[in-house]
């Protein structure tokens, strides 16, 4: 009880120093948490991918398409429940800074294969019946102030021209991690336009999204699909949605590694700063520790006092940082929604933050604790006056 009181009072003995140290630790832990969240987000697509979905693409490269005739052949393969064409559209809304992912999809297959995108029956019906209909995520709609019935024009980049759409549905994610910043429209609208304008590019699917009845047999189904198109002009490469997403993540792995390193560097820097503060603190109190030893306190009492103070300051700063991470993440999610469809701090990140704070406190106290605990009384008392 005494030790706790002594630690708490010592921690705030130099208020400015304590405030600066706590602030430093808090900012470092907050930055660490945000960076770790960012790293986690990179894998969000992978984590939220469904085990009942496969992706078939051209075996040569994703930039090459597949004939639309493949759809029916894929559907007939045992174990396949649904198959739908999907094309990356790459349209721009007003200016490039308004980037959001936009895809041409087959409405019925889309509604069947993506149950995590929640739409009302009226919205689903409206989308199915309107060739120019589009379904957008809630966050995207909020960003641009879109509502049902609004007309939206995208400038085509891959598919040139001005493309007009009518918002027929605004979906919400079934989970908080579901991406609500995407734009989906009817594949037939794209294809029919291409037939008129660029016929050679019509009747082509960028990829096929394939539903499987049994996730455990996904690998067998994928092999069967690829075997069906072996030695054709456009061979397929079929993989799980997770593997497909991972291939995108792998392209930017170096960036993620860099961010991870930066997050660790932040912790190391604050560790050094905290160690310096604790060393200064312990040096100033050497005579006090010597006095306590004189009175009969032993090295472990002194070690507990220094170690406890360092740990308290780091954990206090850490908690402030952890608490601050949530509004900061919310702010990022709101203000940078076009870059981050969601910015959710996970429990794992919070545990990592707290562990980092404890590590900072413990490491920063090693030298001062050793110094204070082992100081000879006569030497320590000589520090006075």
């Amino acid at each position, binding site marked *: 009880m*005494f030790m706790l*009181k*002594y630690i708490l*009072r*010592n921690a705030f*003995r130099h208020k400015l120093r304590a405030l600066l140290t706590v602030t430093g630790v808090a900012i470092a832990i907050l930055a660490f948490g945000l960076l770790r969240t960012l790293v986690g987000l990179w894998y969000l697509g992978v984590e939220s991918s469904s085990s009942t979905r496969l992706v078939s693409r051209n075996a040569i490269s994703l930039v090459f398409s597949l004939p639309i005739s493949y759809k029916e052949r894929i559907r007939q393969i045992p174990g396949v429940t649904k198959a739908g064409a999907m094309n990356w559209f790459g349209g721009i809304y007003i200016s490039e800074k308004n980037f959001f992912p936009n895809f041409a999809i087959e409405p019925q297959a889309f509604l069947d294969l993506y149950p995590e995108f929640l739409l009302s029956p009226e919205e689903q019906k409206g989308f199915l019946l309107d060739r120019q209909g589009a379904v957008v995520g809630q966050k995207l709609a909020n960003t641009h102030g879109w509502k049902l019935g609004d007309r939206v024009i995208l400038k085509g980049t891959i598919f040139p021209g001005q493309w007009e759409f009518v918002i027929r549905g605004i979906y919400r994610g079934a989970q908080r991690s579901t991406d609500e910043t995407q734009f989906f429209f009817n594949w037939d609208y794209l294809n029919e336009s291409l037939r008129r304008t660029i016929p050679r590019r019509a009747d082509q699917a960028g990829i096929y999204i394939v539903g499987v009845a049994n996730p455990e047999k996904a690998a067998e189904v994928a092999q069967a699909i690829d075997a069906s198109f072996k030695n054709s002009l456009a061979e397929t490469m079929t993989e799980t949605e997770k593997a497909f997403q991972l291939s995108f993540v792998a392209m930017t792995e170096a960036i993620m590694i860099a961010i991870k390193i930066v997050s660790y560097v932040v912790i190391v820097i604050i560790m050094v700063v905290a160690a310096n503060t604790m060393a200064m603190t312990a040096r100033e109190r050497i*005579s*006090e520790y010597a*006095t*306590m*030893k*004189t*009175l*009969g*306190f*032993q*090295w472990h009492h002194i070690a507990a006092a220094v170690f406890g103070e360092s740990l308290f300051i780091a954990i206090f700063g850490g908690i402030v940082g952890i608490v601050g991470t949530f509004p900061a993440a919310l702010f990022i999610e709101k203000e940078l929604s076009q870059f981050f469809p969601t910015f959710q701090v996970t429990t794992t990140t919070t545990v990592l933050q707290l562990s980092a704070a404890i590590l900072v406190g413990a490491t920063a106290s090693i030298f001062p604790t050793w110094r204070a605990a082992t100081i*000879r*009384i*006569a030497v320590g*008392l000589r520090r*006075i*006056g």
Partner: protein
Amino acid sequence: MAAGSEIVIIKNVTKSYRRGNQIVPVLEDISFTIQSGEFIALMGPSGSGKSTLLNLIAGIDKVDSGSIIIGGCEITTLSETELARWRAVNVGFVFQFYNLIPVLTAYENVELPLLLTRLSRRERRDHVEAALEMVNLADRMDHRPSQLSGGQQQRVAIARAIVTDPAILVADEPTGDLDRVSAGEILSLMDHLVQDFDKTIIMVTHDPRAAEKAHIIRHLEKGLLTDR
């Protein structure tokens, strides 16, 4: 310990310090005894070894050779841990600059040595209040050292020194940082402890007026007792 018996026996104590490659002798073959209930002043010029001798008697420094027996216990053979336990029970300390813990109140400072005992909270309170009463500071027990004058801080330090009821008090320049009036009060208090409570006090001082209060004055010069 009966008054008049030998409470401190110092036999052929030698102590030196290492300064770089040099060994500087501080005490050379010191031998003397102190009777229980005596108030002894150690005097001498700076660097004469009086504070070192006090530290050795108090068990906060180690001799190079020789032995120190206090209350029948040869402290020169004790380990650091044993010495810490021994000090907590047998010796009270009064320092020149009081050495109170700034973040603790007068009450908490006096209570410090009792935290190492098995006394209950209630018993500790009784002891602390009695000690503070004795030094006339019962009304200041909730004050922190920074809220007390130098004389009051030294009285708190004396209360801390006597709260465990040790047989010996060691005081290193207890009046060195005090004005004349406060110094007089502290010396009277120490005299009171010797006269009425049979404490043995060993005091290092430069101040002849402080030394006058002592029963015996020992002089040290260049590590040697000069008044054998």
